[in-house]
């Protein structure tokens, strides 16, 4: 489903990713853990197609297509979703309007019919209930005046509505207290299925107590340094990332 081969990326002229390779199958949950500055956020932005990153080498194949040649909105239509670490606020545009515009834009790109307003509202209502959100929030501007936890929950709601093939979660746990973390994780777990894959990017193992990964990668110095099962996350929690710095420095 996702094949990243030898990806090299410069940000602001400096190399950040230096030969990253990663392969994911449909339905898998992968975690990428790494220290600050290891290139975690860069990876998520490059996959989603944000400007300002220069791919100098390597390829990314998603759903059998060359991901890197596509516009961000086309990647979204193909089923790629990025849950932002810092979701933006859009004053005056209600979450309902925003979601409806997004969902219909994606459906249109896929050659599907746009959803009738009633069908849309029904779907939204169902997802809101699942996530235990306040329906009133849907009338407010996107993320305007939302708490940190509400913003992240809103990301998960959008994910649920757009039903992606691959959801990349960029430090979704940052700034969340334990209760909010639980709610967000439950929302994500409800979306797990044979057709939906997750790439969970995090600094801390804590999130992985709630979203259980199939595979854990350690990203340091722009490369995957080690790949293993869930036990790898626990090991990192115990020992930290120091070993990987040493390994890369020596290399």
């Amino acid at each position, binding site marked *: 489903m996702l094949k990243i081969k030898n990806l090299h990326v410069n940000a602001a002229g400096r190399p950040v990713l230096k030969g990253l390779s990663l392969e994911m199958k449909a339905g898998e949950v992968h975690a990428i853990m790494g220290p600050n500055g290891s290139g975690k956020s860069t990876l998520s932005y490059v996959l989603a197609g944000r*400007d300002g990153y220069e791919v100098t080498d390597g390829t990314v194949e998603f759903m059998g297509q060359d991901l890197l040649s596509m516009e961000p909105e086309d990647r979204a239509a193909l089923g790629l979703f990025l849950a932002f670490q810092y979701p933006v606020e859009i004053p*005056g*545009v209600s979450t309902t309007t925003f979601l409806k515009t997004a969902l219909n834009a994606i459906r249109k790109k896929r050659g599907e019919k746009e959803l009738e307003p009633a069908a849309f509202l029904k779907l939204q209502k169902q997802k809101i209930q699942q996530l235990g959100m306040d329906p009133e929030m849907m009338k407010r501007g996107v993320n305007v005046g939302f708490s940190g936890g509400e913003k992240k929950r809103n990301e998960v709601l959008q994910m649920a509505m757009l039903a992606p093939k691959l959801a990349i979660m960029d430090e979704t746990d940052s700034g969340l207290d334990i209760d909010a973390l639980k709610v967000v994780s439950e929302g994500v777990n409800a979306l797990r299925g044979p057709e939906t894959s997750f790439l969970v990017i995090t600094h801390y193992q804590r999130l992985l107590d709630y979203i259980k990964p199939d595979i854990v990668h350690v990203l340091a110095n722009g490369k995957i340094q080690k790949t293993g099962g869930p036990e790898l996350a626990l090991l990192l929690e115990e020992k930290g990332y120091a070993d990987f710095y040493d390994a890369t420095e020596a290399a």
Partner: protein
Amino acid sequence: MSNAAIAPETLETIKALDKYEAGFVTDIESDFAPKGLSEDIIRFISAKKNEPDWMLESRLTAYRHWLTLPEPEWANVSFPPVDYQDAYYYAAPKTAAAPKSLDELDPKLLETYKKLGIPLREQEMLNGIAVDAVFDSVSVVTTFREKLHSAGVIFCSISEAVQKYPDMIKKYMGSVVPYTDNKHACLNAAVFTDGTFVYIPEGVRCPMELSTYFRINEAKTGQFERTLIVAEKKSYVSYLEGCTAPKRDENQMHAAVVELIAMDDAEIKYSTVQNWYPGDENGKGGIYNFVTKRGICKGARSRISWTQVETGSAITWKYPSCVLLGDDSVGEFYSVALTNNYQQADTGTKMIHIGKNTRSRIIAKGISAGKSNSTYRGLVRIAQKAENARNYTQCDSLLIGDLCGAHTVPYIENKNPTATLEHEATTSKISDKTLFYCRQRGIPEEEALTLIVNGFCKEVLQHLPMEFAVEAQKLVAISLEGSVG
């Protein structure tokens, strides 16, 4: 559903449109005044309109005063000196000389308005809006006259009002904006050719929305229209105006004067969707929109509300204002000014508090894209006797790209210590991050930009009547085309 929700069909329509779909010319034979400006020209216009002597005298007085006035230069706009002799001050379709009924109207004119989305045949109008259609220098038709007449409402062209209601015209015209007010208003007082007169009798709630649709057609022609609305005690009227012009390389002048008068407990809502030709992407051509609009809340508890969406014109220079004379009267100003390419806008309002417990509210949203320049200029004046006056002002500027400018110039003059004045201002830029966020959700860039800008304007757009709100959202989208990527 909120007003800011943009139906996908709307976006489809927008894509199918040329950037300025009103930019066509109607091929119709016109009657012109000789080119240039002089007392003879003014006599010519007055004679064309078969005016009484007092009207001609009033025009000539204004003209003589105009000659003494220097060009105002204080606004944050720049343009080469206007050659007043290089323009026509009167142009009218030959066929429009007399007819005032739809059956007599030149089919070319009907077709023109239809093309602009303004069907004039009453049976074709679904939304019950009465229209006064002003084509270059003349009002060509006014719809729904009978229906309005039975409610006691007068809705006719100003030329007709001069003939039929001279006492009211003498009493009210120039009472809010005197010819001495400013250079452009003075010129209008001398050469105005048509416009709309509305009179709502005491206790009457106007049964339908009234509107005027201004169309400039001929080249090198200035349009100088005059609108006068009088709302008697406890009456209510909602009035809309729209405007378009063909695409031309040379600039054309539009210097209108609008006067509103609200008596005790009366309410006037005045909405404008201004879509004059803005010039091309290199700043060539476009309308100079130099307009004086002012309303007086003469009676106690009266209310005047201005809502404007200004997307067109090469230069927009106007300050729809309220003089709050009656105690407990209320003035409101809601504005969206959008400039793109080389457009310039210096717009805002004046709220003059004279009566006690007068309140005013100003919400101004400026959007600048391309190499355009937008200024909010607003005056809040609290006179000595205006006990407990209140004003709330909010002006927000949104910048798109790195080459445009946004300026905010608020003036506050307070002579009464009991006044409460609030002023909030923000300037923001549509960040790459916000656009990327939308695109990540599958929304293409131009659609995302439209969504964000309409969200930014929502507070203002929701004050427009429904049909105009939809129109305004489309205009915002069209006007922003090409401002990203």
